[in-house]
């Protein structure tokens, strides 16, 4: 190594003539190391089984939401969990602040899960139980990921791309069941439509009606409702691509209608005494953002 050449302030004449042998050797060694690392990284992407196969597609929030609604309608149980029979593609919608629907998949079988966003950027993060998979989820782009769960259990899904003030509440589970359990469920429920989103609105006479904001704002079209004491039914129509429902709480009552997507209707019925109640959307973060109102029962 050469003796220190010159200062940082005044370069000596002829500084550009040569690079000494030691520095040349060092440069060649680090360049070769980098090339080698790059080659290994290519091999890792091409030949290893550490990569989760992914495909992408263009979509729109409205189109994707309709697809999730059709999927959920077909496969959801009465708790809103969608049981995905092997060989079926699953669809999940990320919106502030929920993953919808919760998926139940079969252990040992490859499943294609599509994920897209109905509003802002989200981060799909499957964590815990030795699992760690992270994907960026954007509106207008759908991510399809092929997973083969190897053991039954409940795996945590969280959002890890900041999406708003309720970001930390956006969590769900991916449930993996054994082949027997899946077969039992399919035999029991068939593929008949569950209760989700299929209830015809306005069935009961004098039922209260309201509509979610069509543009995707977190609000209903009304903030005040009134009803007579007794069995009160509220039906909410959802014209937006976001998941919403209608729920009633207050005075010890806590009743929730099913969560529905675009063009679905959610109905809740409760036996109410005179008093003041709150009607709201129970999707995480929606009530806090103003999707609620007052129900006065006389």
């Amino acid at each position: 190594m050469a003796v220190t050449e010159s200062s940082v302030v005044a370069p000596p004449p002829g500084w550009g003539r040569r690079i000494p042998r030691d520095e040349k050797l060092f440069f060649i060694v680090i360049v070769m190391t980098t090339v080698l690392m790059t080659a290994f990284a290519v091999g890792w992407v091409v030949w290893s089984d550490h990569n989760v196969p992914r495909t992408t597609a263009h979509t729109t929030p409205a189109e994707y939401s309709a697809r999730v609604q059709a999927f959920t309608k077909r496969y959801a149980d009465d708790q809103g969990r969608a049981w995905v029979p092997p060989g079926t593609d699953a669809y999940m919608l990320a919106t502030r602040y929920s993953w919808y629907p919760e998926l139940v998949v079969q252990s040992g079988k490859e499943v294609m899960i599509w994920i897209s966003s109905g509003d802002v950027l989200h981060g799909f993060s499957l964590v815990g139980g030795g699992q760690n998979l992270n994907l960026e989820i954007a509106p207008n782009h759908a991510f399809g990921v092929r997973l083969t769960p190897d053991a039954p259990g409940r795996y945590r899904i969280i959002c890890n791309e900041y999406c708003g003030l309720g970001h930390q509440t956006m969590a769900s589970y991916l449930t993996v069941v054994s082949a027997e359990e899946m077969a039992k469920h399919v035999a029991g429920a068939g593929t008949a439509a569950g209760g989700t989103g299929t209830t015809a609105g306005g069935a009961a006479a004098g039922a209260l009606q309201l509509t979610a904001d069509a543009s995707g704002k977190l609000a209903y079209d009304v903030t005040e409702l009134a009803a007579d004491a007794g069995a009160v039914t509220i039906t909410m129509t959802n014209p937006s691509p976001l998941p919403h429902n209608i729920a009633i709480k207050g005075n010890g009552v806590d009743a929730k209608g099913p969560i529905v997507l675009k063009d679905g209707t959610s109905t809740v019925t409760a036996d109410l005494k005179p008093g003041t109640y709150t009607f709201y959307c129970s999707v995480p973060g929606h009530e806090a953002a103003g999707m609620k109102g007052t129900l006065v029962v006389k």
Partner: protein
Amino acid sequence: MAIAEPLPLAVSTDHRELSRICTVTGLRIFAGAQALTLANAVAAVLALAAGGLFGTLVGLSRAPALAFLGPGTFYAALTGHGVAALVLWPVFFEVAAMVFASSILLNARVWSMKLGWLSFALMIGGAVVLLLTILLGDASVMFTAYPPLVATQWFYIGYLVFAVGVLGAIVNFALTIVAARAEGAHEGSLPLITYGVGCAAILALLSILSGLVALIPAWVYANGWTDTLDPIVYRGWFWGLGHTLQYVNVVAMVVAWYGIAALAYGAGPVNQKFTRFAFVLYLIIAVPVLGHHFLVDPSIGTTTKFVGGTAMGFALGIPSLMHGLAVMGGVEAEMRARGAMGLFGWLKRLRFGHFATASLTCSLLIFAIGGWSGTVETTLPLNLVNHNTMGVPAHIHSVVVGGTTLAFMGFAYYLVPLLSRRRLWGGRLATVQAYLYGAGLLVMIVAQTWAGALGVPRRTQSIDYPGGTPGGWDASMNLNGVGVALASTAGVIFIVIMVATLVLGKRTEDPAELVEPAYS
């Protein structure tokens, strides 16, 4: 400020301006250049204080044992931390370096003091608007501001005004060099530091142009004047700003390394051509490497992701390793020239109780750790595991705080006394500060890497999810809180030393008091 000498006759009388000769370096320092450098340096320290304060709040609140901030305050503080510590502090410092390297190092005046002060005013104005919107809670969108999430339009206006100010400073930097040559103040090759700062200025120019392409449509979108803005496209242009700006930081950090080595040990780079070639490599590789931000995006082909992310990410190690060799090799060669013997005899000559050795050692070491973790994260299959976990802040804090901020602090311990001609206040406190900051950062980096491996998400107010958290999540984030407390304490000490030097420091022109050698 005492101005010693009038202008030399060779310079046109249109630009008559007072100047002095530095007693340490022998450089001619013009009054305007000195004032503008100091003003930007002071703004940088204030921005660091703001960024550090936000960072302390965020870091401590993320420890599950403390968790004292609600979502509204937390996300506002986190946005403020990103804006102040990742944009305002380094950019103000680099503008200070640009003025210093183009005028003071070239014995020249600043091309236009009016443009200099106008740029400074725009940057201050933009920064104040940015921080106000964040403090009012109208811009809790993180410093990345990914649409469709939108902030108040003043947030984007703040960014844009700040960017225009930086553009003015870059123009002034370039024309100052041109004028210095035209007026005969400087001849021959540019000094290494000016050359390096010039590379940083080119990267800053590219990043700001990319930032304008991202932020102007985002501002239009935030106002509701259009409803089409693809977030993936925005992310591309934004990281043209965001990541290229980090390479402005890296280049400026390397310049600070050379600056510290020169002032503390009288050492230059082992070979000028080798060092300058490494600077040019940064220019070539630093822009396409933004591809690593899209490794797990639902768009962009795998080949593009691999080349722009993984391959470029690996290649960026080359210039950084070259500079690492050149800085340490330069110090070694200088110590050997002064009589150090044996394989490690030169290390024994360094005074490890001196702030220069402390900050340079910690900066080199922690930056190397950050380079390593960056290489890990930019590898496609590993990014699937790492993306948006605490592993990412572990990398960022290693390179930007451990590397850049610590090097800037060490350099500031020289720059501020030399320009204010006051002795550094606090004696050995600066050494304690550098080691404590380094130690706190190492604890943070270990804890964040651990948390990242377990999948703890970054940028979240709470990990207290219903149903409990996986094992190790709470422990790793509590350990991170300990590191934050240590580093924050050291951050406060730095601010105290800087302010005390400017206000209480003993006035002196004695070179021995202004720059104390860091070798024996």
